[in-house]
């Protein structure tokens, strides 16, 4: 009742006053916590915890308030009141609520997110993790369930801290692994948790594998129906991928123990499975990711990386993975495009640099008799005909890798490039499986002729550039190919290369016709791809340069392209590279198109400094800067499995990210190999051009002897000869002056254009500044964390120092205590010794006692003597009195006393003596 009132109240007040009433929530939560903490009646405490859970789960303000005060109390309940399952459940559920984001429509950037804050706080509680792990051993289902949810929440937000902590807890990971054997709900939670736990934590990955994760993962996948299974299969594969990503040790273990059969099984399509759920698509993509990770091998730091990678490849090929990939990527057109792309990429990874696998792919034929064709032809057809840009890129990747360091393969493909008569070429059916690779490629290359399909043409050009790359015989061979004009009447056949230049020009003209408003990037990649073909073709090939320069307009067009400001920096840069190749690979004897002539043309039409500037611009361009960065891992988020968004993403993601005028596809066309190739070329070009330019051919040879008048030469003839000589020299000086003028102009232009260029390149600079700034931020963040770590370590050191101090003090007092004990012990020992020594030391005592006794006795006898003397005195006076009386009575006293004297002689004598004295 109260709770309802409260939340209702909050609902209204919160809406109206926003955060101003936060103290109300604080007070409310505080009161509930107080009841939980100090309550006497169990029922009341339980009610309080239920109430608390309810408000925390609904409202951010309560979450915040709870986080600030409640954690220690909840942990206290978990620790002290294990017997009370209901209380423990309540506490756990409250914690879950406090860590779960409450979805409000929008989260503004600066707003505090209580769930994040609470996870942070909880993860910092030292005892929280061991406590939670111990709760996993409880019998109550909900206790384990909530505990797993809490741990997952903690891992999501404070992963590293959790990972470190869990590693230090004995059997911590083991306990989590045991959850995989629990009932289904728990098992599924545990899968999620382990997926978070294993992210970028090599040691944890290994321990989990040690605990038998592979067995469990694959048995769950099998139970759930392999790729037809639900989201659990996806979770399993995600965990599997985390376990083997860059982890050679775990890859070995997978290979050696479980083997790759269960993985292959996931990728096998059942004959009837034409329909694909989104979940199945994601499951397959995840399994293909596993293949990709295996093909990638361990971490780069691992010295045995290549050997391990090779073993993975061999094992996969043994399991006929290529067939399965071909089915997924090439043969089954009903498979979603994202899966086809991923399968093609895997084929590319499988064959690259592996002669056996290259041959294997080359020998594969697809389809059923009699409709069979080589797999490579099928893949080429995908390149030429796919409507998906991503699929083209993926298939192109296969050819790129097929041709890499594979001269034989290139030769094999090039050998089929035999031009057909025009009529034949355009009448065949494209589906014809009997068509050779070469015919198909040439057909694609010249398709632009009829319908202006330059896109297909450029895709074919991309394949051709792979075939020509670093392979001089192939370049020469393809140079000889001549293409018939569309109509015989329009002229003689022309070389294929000229046709390609024509399409290049066509692409730029189409672009300028289209206007700048839209589709500016549409054909820019067409141009880039054709230019890439030319760059590849001309490299190291004198005949190719010769062929290119054969048509005079080519050079003019190229010069124009370099300085055409409406082209992208990339196009201008590539054009400049082609121009440079015309200089450095030029061995033409024809003075009209030798290296000197071309350098002169460059200097006149463009200006050398500006020309070189094109290279720099190109390097700064977005595409180039990006080409070298590797692709980062992206996983399918679990929630998005329901929507198709993520799969679309694979297609659209790259398109949306680019802010540059260059087409997104360039990023994949310009692989790092090509980029470094261009860079090497460029250095070469610079050197060569400066070399050529600084040493112009001299027309007039100055031979000293010729200036002298020859014998037999008349004065007139001599003068004439000298005049001609001077005239020649004059014209050469004119030439040089002209050249000088061009240079000066160039210099002046560059000086001024540098400024404007600077302004133009402001955007580029800004991009760079941005990256620099980001780098800086990252660095300073890292510094911050390092500082934190240092402080932590320092405080730890301090603590240990203190501890050591205390220990020392303890030791000191202990030793003191010991000393005193020892002393007393010594004393006791002495005493014992003394006792054992006998009377020796007791004698004086006895003597003393004796003396004492004697003294006492003497004292006593003296007293007695005194008494006696007194008595004697009294007796004497009695005797005297009696004697006197007797005398009075007339008695003879002496006579009377004589008798007495006999009886007590000595005493009388004594008395007498006394008396006498």
């Amino acid at each position: 009742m109260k709770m309802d009132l409260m939340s209702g109240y909050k609902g209204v007040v919160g809406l109206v006053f926003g955060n101003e009433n936060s103290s109300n929530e604080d007070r409310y939560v505080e009161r509930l916590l107080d009841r939980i903490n100090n309550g006497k009646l169990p029922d009341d405490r339980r009610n309080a915890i239920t109430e608390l859970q309810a408000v925390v789960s609904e409202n951010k303000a309560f979450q915040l308030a709870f986080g600030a005060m409640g954690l220690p109390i909840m942990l206290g309940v978990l620790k002290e009141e294990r017997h009370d399952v209901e209380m423990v459940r309540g506490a756990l559920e409250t914690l879950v609520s406090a860590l779960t984001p409450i979805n409000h429509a929008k989260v503004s950037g600066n707003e505090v997110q209580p769930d994040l804050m609470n996870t942070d706080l909880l993860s910092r509680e030292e005892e929280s993790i061991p406590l939670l792990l111990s709760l996993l051993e409880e019998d109550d289902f909900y206790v384990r369930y909530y505990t797993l949810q809490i741990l997952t929440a903690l891992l999501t937000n404070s992963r590293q801290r959790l990972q470190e902590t869990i590693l230090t807890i004995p059997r911590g990971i083991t306990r989590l692994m045991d959850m995989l054997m629990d009932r289904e709900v728990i098992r599924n939670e545990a899968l999620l948790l382990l997926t978070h736990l294993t992210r970028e934590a090599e040691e944890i990955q290994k321990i989990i594998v040690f605990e038998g994760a592979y067995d469990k993962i694959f048995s769950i996948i099998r139970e759930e129906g392999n790729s037809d299974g639900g989201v659990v299969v996806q979770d399993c594969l995600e965990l599997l991928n985390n376990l083997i990503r860059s982890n050679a040790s775990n890859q070995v273990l997978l290979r050696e123990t479980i083997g790759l059969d269960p993985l292959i099984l996931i990728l096998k399509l059942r004959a009837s499975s034409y329909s694909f759920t989104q979940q199945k698509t994601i499951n397959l993509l995840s399994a293909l990711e596993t293949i990709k990770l295996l093909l990638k091998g361990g971490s780069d730091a691992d010295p045995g990386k290549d050997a391990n990678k090779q073993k993975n490849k061999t094992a996969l090929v043994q399991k006929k993975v290529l067939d399965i990939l071909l089915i997924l990527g090439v043969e089954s057109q009903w498979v979603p495009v994202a899966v086809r792309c991923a399968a093609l990429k895997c084929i590319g990874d499988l064959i690259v640099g592996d002669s056996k696998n290259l041959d294997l792919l080359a020998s594969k034929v697809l389809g059923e008799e009699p409709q069979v064709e080589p797999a490579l032809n099928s893949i080429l057809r995908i390149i030429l005909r796919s409507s998906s840009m991503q699929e083209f890129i993926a298939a192109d990747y296969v050819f790129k890798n097929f041709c890499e360091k594979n001269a034989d393969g290139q030769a094999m493909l090039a050998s089929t490039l035999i031009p057909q008569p025009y009529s034949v070429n355009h009448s065949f059916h494209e589906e014809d499986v009997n068509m050779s690779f070469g015919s198909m490629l040439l057909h694609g290359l010249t398709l632009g002729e009829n319908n202006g399909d330059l896109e297909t043409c450029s895709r074919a050009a991309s394949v051709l550039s792979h075939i020509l790359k670093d392979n001089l015989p192939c370049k020469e061979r393809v140079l000889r190919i001549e293409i018939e004009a569309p109509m015989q009447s329009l002229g003689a056949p022309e070389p294929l290369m000229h046709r390609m230049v024509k399409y290049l020009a066509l692409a730029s003209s189409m672009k300028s016709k289209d206007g700048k408003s839209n589709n500016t990037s549409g054909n820019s990649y067409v141009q880039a791809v054709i230019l890439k073909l030319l760059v590849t073709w001309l490299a190291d090939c004198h005949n190719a340069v010769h062929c290119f320069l054969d048509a005079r307009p080519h050079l003019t067009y190229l010069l124009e392209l370099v300085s055409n400001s409406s082209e992208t920096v990339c196009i201008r840069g590539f054009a400049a590279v082609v121009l440079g190749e015309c200089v450095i690979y030029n061995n033409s004897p024809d003075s009209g198109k030798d290296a000197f002539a071309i350098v002169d043309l460059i200097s006149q039409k463009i200006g050398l400094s500006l020309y070189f500037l094109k290279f720099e611009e190109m390097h700064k361009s977005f595409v180039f800067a990006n080409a070298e960065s590797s692709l980062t891992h992206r996983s399918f988020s679990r929630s998005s499995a329901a929507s198709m968004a993520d799969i679309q993403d694979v297609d659209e993601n790259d398109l949306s990210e680019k802010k540059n005028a260059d087409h997104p596809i360039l990023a994949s066309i310009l692989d790092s190999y090509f980029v470094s190739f261009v860079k090497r070329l460029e250095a070469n070009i610079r050197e060569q051009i400066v070399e050529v330019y600084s040493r112009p051919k001299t027309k007039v040879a100055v031979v000293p002897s010729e200036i002298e008048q020859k014998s037999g030469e008349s004065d007139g003839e001599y003068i004439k000869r000298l005049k001609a000589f001077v005239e020649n020299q004059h014209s050469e000086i004119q030439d040089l002056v002209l050249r000088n003028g061009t240079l000066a102009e160039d210099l002046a232009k560059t000086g001024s254009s540098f400024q404007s260029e600077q302004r133009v390149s402001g955007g580029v600079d800004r991009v760079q500044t941005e990256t620099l700034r980001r780098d800086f931020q990252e660095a300073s963040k890292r510094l911050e964390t390092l500082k934190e770590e240092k402080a932590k370590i320092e405080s730890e050191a301090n603590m240990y120092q203190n501890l050591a101090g205390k220990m020392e003090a303890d030791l000191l007092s202990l030793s003191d205590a010991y000393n005193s004990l020892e002393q007393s012990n010594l004393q006791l020992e002495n005493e014992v010794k003394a006792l054992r020594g006998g009377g020796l030391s007791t004698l004086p005592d006895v003597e003393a006692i004796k003396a004492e006794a004697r003294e006492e006795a003497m004292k006593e006898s003296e007293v007695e003597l005194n008494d006696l003397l007194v008595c004697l005195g009294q007796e004497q006076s009695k005797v005297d009195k009696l004697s006197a009386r007797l005398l009075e009575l007339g008695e003879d006293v002496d006579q009377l006393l004589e008798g007495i004297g006999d009886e007590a002689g000595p005493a009388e004598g004594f008395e007498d003596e006394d008396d006498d004295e």
Partner: protein
Amino acid sequence: MSYAYLFKYIIIGDTGVGKSCLLLQFTDKRFQPVHDLTIGVEFGARMITIDNKPIKLQIWDTAGQESFRSITRSYYRGAAGALLVYDITRRETFNHLASWLEDARQHANANMTIMLIGNKCDLAHRRAVSTEEGEQFAKEHGLIFMEASAKTAQNVEEAFIKTAGTIYKKIQDGVFDVSNESYGIKVGYGGIPGPSGGRDGPSAAGGSCCS
């Protein structure tokens, strides 16, 4: 790939005693004089035959450095066998055995078979721990003992196989509940099925082994 049993081993002992080299010698039959420090834990595997049965050994080689102890401890519980290694030329590695043993007893399952290995026995001229001392220590603590050399391969094979033999015998004697994988033992496809399946072949073989 099929095996009758799979045993999980760990190799423990001070840093630099040659744990990784022992593993490399056993799995790859080669010796690497300079070996990087093991970080965390490395893995190796090999198939052996005991009593005509294929047995798969999965071996986890742990880092000896103190800083990795909390990581390496995670491997104790699930292991059926442990090779505890010291270096006969470095006395201190022998002196630390007791603490390793204590660690193992605390974290491992009670039935784990421990083999004590005095490694580098090829370096006899630099010997600092006598064979008798090793034997004595093993006897006192109920371990199997061998001196071995990862460099010359002497006794390496034997050490791993003898450990496996001991575990195998323990299984025959019914010490383990082999259906519980947490003891580091797994029954393979070619192995003796669970308690229910008492088919002729395996049990007969078991008998012959024990005799």
